[in-house]
């Protein structure tokens, strides 16, 4: 239960829930870069597991720190899977489509290390959330 934030403790009230939320939001507010990999059936079928492993391998190889690789669901662009969304604190989230192992390496080397957006592979830049 490391994911839940507060161990095995059951929430006993609405306030407990609010406190847990505040903790989770503070965690998200930390200055960490997040790579979101689409891991619904559509993504997995298109090879998202390989992409996720390639990202992790390249990050390790380059010795980068404070980068999380997270699985997520389907954003709806099934035709463009595997997808990787790069969230760098203070920057627009960038979503790449048709990512393969090679492109995964490039995303780490160019986008994460040099701040260069790989325009050719960008699906969307600003994420709208209602």
């Amino acid at each position, binding site marked *: 239960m490391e994911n839940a934030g507060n161990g095995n403790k059951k929430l006993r009230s609405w306030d407990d829930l609010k406190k847990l939320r505040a903790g989770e939001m503070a965690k998200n507010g930390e200055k960490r870069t997040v790579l979101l990999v689409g891991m619904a*059936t559509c993504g997995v079928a298109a090879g998202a597991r390989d992409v996720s492993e390639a990202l992790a391998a390249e990050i390790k190889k380059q010795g980068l720190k404070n980068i999380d690789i997270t699985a997520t669901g*389907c954003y709806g662009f099934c035709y463009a899977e595997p997808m990787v969304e790069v969230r760098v604190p203070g920057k627009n989230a960038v979503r790449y489509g048709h990512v393969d192992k090679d492109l995964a390496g490039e995303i780490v080397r160019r986008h994460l290390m040099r701040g260069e957006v790989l325009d050719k592979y960008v699906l*969307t830049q600003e994420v709208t959330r209602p």
Partner: protein
Amino acid sequence: MSDNYGQVRIALRNCGVIDPEKIGDYIAQGGYDALAKAIFEMTPAEIIDTVKKSGLRGRGGAGFPTGLKWELSGKSEGDEKYVMCNADEGDPGAFMDRSILEGDPHSVLEAMVICGRAIGARQGIIYIRAEYPLAVKRLQKAIGEAEELGLLGDDILGSGFDFGIRLYLGAGAFVCGEETSLMNSVQGGRGEPRIKPPFPAQAGLWKKPTNINNVETYANVCRIILNGWEWFRQFGTEKSPGTKVFALAGKVNNVGLVEVPMGMPLRHIIEVIGGGIQNGRKLKAVQTGGPSGGCIPEEHMDTPVDYESLVALGSIMGSGGMIVLDEDDCMVNIAQFYLKFTAEESCGKCTPCRIGNRRLLEILEKITTGGGAEKDMIDLDELGNIVRDCSLCGLGQSSPNPVLSTLKYFRDEYLVHVNDKRCPSKRCTALLRYFIMPEKCIGCTVCARNCPVSCISGERKKTHVIDQARCIKCNTCYEKCPVNAITKE
């Protein structure tokens, strides 16, 4: 560059945004606040009233008002009631529910607990197909995490309210998407429907009052509770408020999931959000609602998408499958494809569906193999209407839709099949004949060497010939010929 093109994400709000296997991610997005609000600030009657006023209608296809369903289950007498979620998504080409369960399982769990609170139930069951292993895994993980935090199980959030959810894996029968069949299946019986009434709200699972909704319906509930019914009504139309998720598939450029406000014209969904038709081909029709729906021709593409408009066109909203067809698709062939599916999936309990669909399919097979006559079209229409009017459950009541709608809108195509024994879209293989064009053939022998039945003869560097009597129309020569010397007509 914008990524929505008029889309509004309510049911899909967290899909592709959070990690579905971390309850903390869901909670950070405001998760389980709707449940807390429903438990601590609202009475069951107020919850039902909010859902009623929101105008939310069943997203599984029929469009029954959700609030009314909750009210009926709430009013039914009984200390034991059930909340069920229908995740038996069986339409070919539809994957909305799978994506919601894989991308945001907690939104469905939370809404089921709210429903339990509203109608006075303490047990929830999700009926999900075993063919969705990833969705099952994520749901199990989500249930486990919610239980550990006391958001499911006994004494939720210290309120004294108990509610547990378990999964039931369906074996993949299409008819089990029908609610009474689904309940029979959970009880260990055959997946067969029964006559309604009594409706599940009065006597459902184990003859107890049961509220059953579709995955996407539940996925809308938490936002309605949190933001209020007025907020929800700002989207969509007067009679069909809110949004609908569609699985866009077929000959469209951007295959995927879209969530649009009700009332958006079909053309906008296909041409703007879907990015138009592949390879610059022309749009011919859109098939909505899967095997229970119909084909809507190009001239009706400006129809707004809502429950009533689609029914008026002879199709249905259905669970949200939307298959785009272009000029290379044969409408008779499409009707045959869907009917083959429903004829195989018919449970066999009632005669109109069991035998009627089989006869409909036989007539279609006759037409697509060159044995049809104009009389067959009259028979299709008459029999289709009988099956629709006399079948016991929704499967048979809707299975003739693909046939009836294509007969109505694409009559000419049927006529070419029955009169000229020809398929204009070159899809009905039995009606095709393959020829080698002498002026193009270079005598390379590739076709002859690849033909699986060795029916192509000819010497090297000389024109080859196909023996029509032995040709099985497998299309191999057409694909292999290096100079495109093979033609089919």
